[in-house]
């Protein structure tokens, strides 16, 4: 029995959030999913909810996902974060590595997303 967790989904696209939410609700029924549409909103929601996982888009109006990940890691070094982005360029992957966050490319496969959401099971 998996312990129910909380996931923060951050994407400026409502459709992208719906697609990711649907995958999580299918594979992890009962988990709480909270959403944010910008990097700024993500920081605010994170501090209030303290989710177990954060899934961050990169290209968003205002603060992008890389900057949001950097700020979250500075304040919450234990946070479990992945980027989920269409921007597959190598420098973005490299920046994710150096920040200590994951990198998933869109469209993400269900098993790949679930592997990320199992990261703190062991």
């Amino acid at each position, binding site marked *: 029995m998996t312990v129910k967790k909380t996931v923060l989904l951050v994407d400026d696209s409502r*459709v992208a959030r719906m697609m990711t939410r649907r995958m999580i609700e299918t594979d992890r029924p009962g988990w709480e999913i909270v959403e944010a549409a910008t990097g700024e909103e993500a920081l605010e929601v994170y501090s209030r909810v303290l989710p177990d996982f954060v899934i961050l888009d990169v290209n968003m109006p205002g603060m992008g996902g890389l900057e949001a990940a950097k700020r979250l890691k500075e304040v919450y070094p234990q946070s479990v974060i992945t980027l989920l982005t269409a921007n597959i360029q190598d420098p973005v992957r490299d920046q994710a590595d150096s920040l200590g966050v994951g990198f998933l490319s869109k469209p993400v496969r269900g098993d790949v997303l679930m592997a990320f959401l199992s990261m703190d099971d062991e």
Partner: protein
Amino acid sequence: MTDFLDDVQRDAVTEIINIAIGQAAGALSQLVDEEVRLSVPLVHFLTPDRAALRLDEETGGGESVAVRQHFQGPFAGDILLIFPERRSLHLVRQMLGDDLPVDQLTELEQEALMEVGNIILNACLGSLANQLGMGVESSLPCYIRGRGRSILDRGPRPEGESEMVMFLHVDFSVRAKDVHGYLAFVMDISSARHFIDAVQAYVTAQLGG
């Protein structure tokens, strides 16, 4: 007007774009869970008016919906995903599931198309950038509805910019879902030359030249 490229350069550009479009097709195929068929990329040097006319000819002259992203780096331009007819509802249904009511599907159509564009156009741009070892910044996607001229309209031309554009496009289709469309790059001649030089340098390096 095709003498901006010699045969070797045209072959190199086609190959690089083939690989980039292949990445984009892979992303689309995953979204719709079907095979995506691609044409051979075609490169033309045209005036913006001729490019718009060409797009109208290929899309049957009707209105199209498109997602456009501007990109910049060592070369700059626009990349577009164009659907000649209103086929995007098929895609939305595929992405969000069959259980969504039709009115909600319609409401989400534009946002869904922008997300499809975001995924596909960035897969293509990202692959190009990775192959050429260059960073390319792209704008957020914007949605356009209209005929060729409004879809390809890039606003007032900066002073000194050539009247010609490089119009590079690929047709794609998902037969099982009755979805077909075009992916197009539009660059002014100065950017196109930088792009062609980068492709040629890449190919030369690959061949150990």
